[in-house]
C-alpha cells in the first residue's frame, strides 16, 4: 500500500523523477502535446474509494492501454475522462482531470460538449435499436454537425469508412443496427463515436464480447484510428494491449502500479506486481 502510494505521485508532469523513466512521455513529445491529464484522481462509490489518487498524462495520437485484474479501477478511471461516472448514483470524483488543459470537472464545463470531444465505446456492443444510418447520424444530428441530408450522408459514410464497416453495410444502411454481428455492431459503435468528431476515444474492453477474428479487425482499426484520435483502451487481454498500444498502465486494487512503454511493461516490468500479473501469477 505504502509503496504504491509513493509510486503514484510523480506521474503528473513530464519532467518528473526517479521511478518514472518508463512512464515518461514518448520521445519528441513536448508537454504541450498532452491531451489528457489526470492528477490525484480519486473515485468514490458512496463511502468506498475505488481509485486511490491516480495521476498520469496521455499525449495526442497515442494509444494508451489500461490493464489490470477485475475490480482494479481501470474502467472507473476511464469513465472519469468523459464523466460517465456522473450517471452512476453515489459516484464522486476528486482530483483534477484536464482535456487540452481544461479542467473537465469545472462547473462551467458542459458535459454534453465534453462527451462530443471525448467519445466512448463500451464493453458490450450497444447500437441503438434503429437503422445503421440512424445509429451513426444520431450524434451528428444532436450536435448539428450536418446542415442537410447530403452532409449527413457524408458524415455517415466517412464515419463508417473510418470504422472499417462501410463496405459491409453500404447496401443496407436502413437495416437495423441490432441485426449486425457482434463485431460489426462494435464497429458500428465506433463509427457512431467517430461521427461526432471527437479528439479522444475511450474504449472500455471493446473486444471482450467478440470472437478472435472480430477482435483482430478492431485491433487493426485501433492502429488506423490512432492517426486521427487519441485512444485510451481498457482491456483484460494482455496480448491485445501488447499488440495495439503505445503505452500501458497497470492498475491493481485501485492503485496505479506502473506506467511505461508497452514493450517495456511486457518485457521488463519494474514492479513485482506488474510482473506477477503479466506472467499470469494472478489476475
Amino acid at each position, binding site marked *: 500500500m505504502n509503496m504504491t502510494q509513493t509510486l503514484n505521485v510523480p506521474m503528473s508532469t513530464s519532467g518528473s523523477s526517479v521511478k518514472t523513466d518508463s512512464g515518461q512521455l514518448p520521445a519528441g513529445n513536448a508537454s504541450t502535446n498532452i491531451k489528457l491529464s489526470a492528477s490525484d484522481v480519486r473515485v468514490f462509490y458512496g463511502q468506498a474509494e475505488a481509485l486511490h489518487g491516480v495521476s498520469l498524462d496521455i499525449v495526442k495520437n497515442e494509444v494508451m492501454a489500461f490493464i489490470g485484474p477485475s475490480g482494479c479501477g481501470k474502467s472507473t478511471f476511464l469513465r472519469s475522462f468523459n464523466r460517465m461516472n456522473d450517471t452512476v448514483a453515489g459516484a464522486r470524483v476528486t482530483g483534477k482531470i484536464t482535456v487540452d488543459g481544461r479542467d473537465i470537472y469545472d462547473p462551467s464545463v458542459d458535459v*454534453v460538449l465534453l462527451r462530443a470531444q471525448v467519445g466512448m465505446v463500451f464493453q458490450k456492443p*450497444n447500437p*441503438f435499436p434503429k437503422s445503421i444510418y440512424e445509429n451513426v447520424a*444520431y*450524434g451528428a444530428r444532436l450536435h448539428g454537425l450536418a446542415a442537410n441530408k447530403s452532409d449527413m450522408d457524408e458524415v455517415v459514410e466517412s464515419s463508417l469508412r473510418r470504422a472499417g464497416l462501410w463496405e459491409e453495410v453500404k447496401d443496407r444502411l436502413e437495416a437495423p443496427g441490432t441485426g449486425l454481428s457482434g463485431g460489426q455492431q462494435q464497429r458500428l459503435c465506433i463509427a457512431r463515436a467517430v461521427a461526432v468528431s471527437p479528439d479522444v476515444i475511450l474504449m472500455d474492453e471493446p473486444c471482450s464480447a467478440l470472437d478472435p477474428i472480430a477482435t483482430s479487425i478492431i485491433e487493426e482499426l485501433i492502429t488506423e484510428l490512432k492517426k486521427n484520435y487519441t485512444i485510451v483502451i481498457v482491456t483484460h487481454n494482455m496480448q491485445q494491449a501488447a499488440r495495439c498500444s503505445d503505452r500501458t498502465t497497470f492498475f491493481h486494487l485501485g492503485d496505479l502500479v506502473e506506467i511505461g512503454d508497452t514493450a517495456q511493461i511486457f518485457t521488463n516490468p519494474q514492479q513485482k506486481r506488474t510482473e506477477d500479473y503479466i506472467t499470469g501469477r494472478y489476475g
Partner: protein
Amino acid sequence: MNTPNNKGYAGIEAKVKASLKRRQREETRFRLFGIGAVLVALALVASLFGTILSKGLPSFWQSTFVLDVHFDPEVVQIGPKPVLEAGEAPAQFNERDLAWQMELGFVDFNQLLINALTKHIPAAADSPRDAMALITSGEHFALRDRVVADPSIIGKTLRLNLLADANVDVWLKGNIDRSLPDDRQQLSAQTREWADKLSADGVIKNKFSTAIFLNPDSRSSLAAAGLAGAFMGSLMMMMIVILLAVPIGVASAIYLEEFAPKNWITDLIEVNINNLAAVPSIVFGLLGAAVFILWFKLPISAPIVGGLVLTLMTLPTVIIATRSTLKAIPPSIREAALGVGASKVQATMHHVLPLAIPGILTATIIGVAQALGETAPLLLIGMSAFVSSIPATPFDQSTALPVQIFLWQGNELRNFFEGRTSAAIIVLLALMLTLNSLAIWLRRRYETRW
C-alpha cells in the same frame, strides 16, 4: 463418492437410475398438477362465459309488436308546433307554446295503440287496461314524438315496431312458470291469452332490439331500459382517466426513474405510491366525495367526479407499471446515448421512451380497464343513482356500466332483468375486450419496428 473399493461404475449407475426414476416421477406429478390447474381455470372461465352468454344473448332479442298504427286525426287533434312569428313578443309566444304543449298532453296516444291492436284482437277495445299491458308504456311517447317531429303523418298509417311489455317478454320467452295460478302471475289471464295469440299470429315477433344500446335506464318502461346513459358515463370517465392518469403517471414514472435523485424523499414517495396501489378502491370514493364534491363543489353523480376519482385510483398502477418498464430498458442504451453527447432528457426521450412505449401502453390499458370495471368508489360519489337521461357533458348526472349492472341485478322484476344484467355484462366485457385488443395491436405495431 466413488471410492475405489466400491462396485465401480455399475454401482454408481444403479444409484443414478434409482434417483432418476424418483426425479421423473416428480416431474410427471408436477406436470399433471399444472395441467390440472389450467383445466380447472379453463372450466371456470368457460362456465362463467357460458352462463353470461346463455342468459345475456337472448336479451338482445325482445318481443316486439309489428303493428300498423293509424294516426287517426279524430284522436290526434293537434296543430303543428307554434313558431315564433315576426313581431311577436316572446312572452306571447311562450304562452302559445305552453298552450300547445298542454293540448299535446291531452292527446290519447294509447287510443292509437288500442285501435291498432283491435284489428288483431277485436276484444281489445272492451278491456283497454289488459290491452295496454301488452305494450311497454314508453311507446305512446314514441308515437307522440313522431307526431311532434313530423305533423304530416297525422291521417296516415305507419307500420311500426313497438316493444312489448317486459312481462309479456318474460311470459313469451318462458322465463316464468306458466302453470302458476293467476294471483301469482304478473299479467292478467286476458293479457296472457292475447299475448299467446298475437305471438302465434306473428304480430309479436322476437326481434333484435336496439333499445338496450340506444336508451337510457328506465323504470316506467322496463322493456325499453337501456345502457346508453351508463355507457356514455363510462366512456366519459375513461376519457378523463386517459387524459389525466396517463400523462401524469408516465411523466411521474419517468421523473422518478430517470431523473430523481435517490434519497430518502424519493424512497418515501416510492413507498407511498406502492401503498396507494394497495388502497381499497372504496377509500378513493370517500376521498372523491370529500375533496371533489364537498370542497371543489363539483356536481354529485357526475362523470367528471367519477373520472377524477378513477384517475387517482389508476395513477399508482400506471406509475408502477411504467417504472418497471423503464427499469427493464438496458442501461447500455442510456450509456450509448450519453456517450455520443446526448443530454439526459435527450437520451430518455429519443431512446428510452420509444423502447418503453409498448410496456407503457400495456400499463395504461391495464389501468384503464381496471378503472372501467370499478364500482365501489362510484357508489360513494352518487353514481349509483337512477338516471333516466343520457349525459351530454361530464358535468351531467350519469351512472356507469358496472354500476348499471349492479342496479339491474337488484331490480325487482328478476326474470326480466336477469337477462338484461347479463346483456350489460356482455357489453362491458366487449368494451374491455376491444380495449385490450387495441393495446395488443398498438404494442405489436411498436414492437414490430425491430
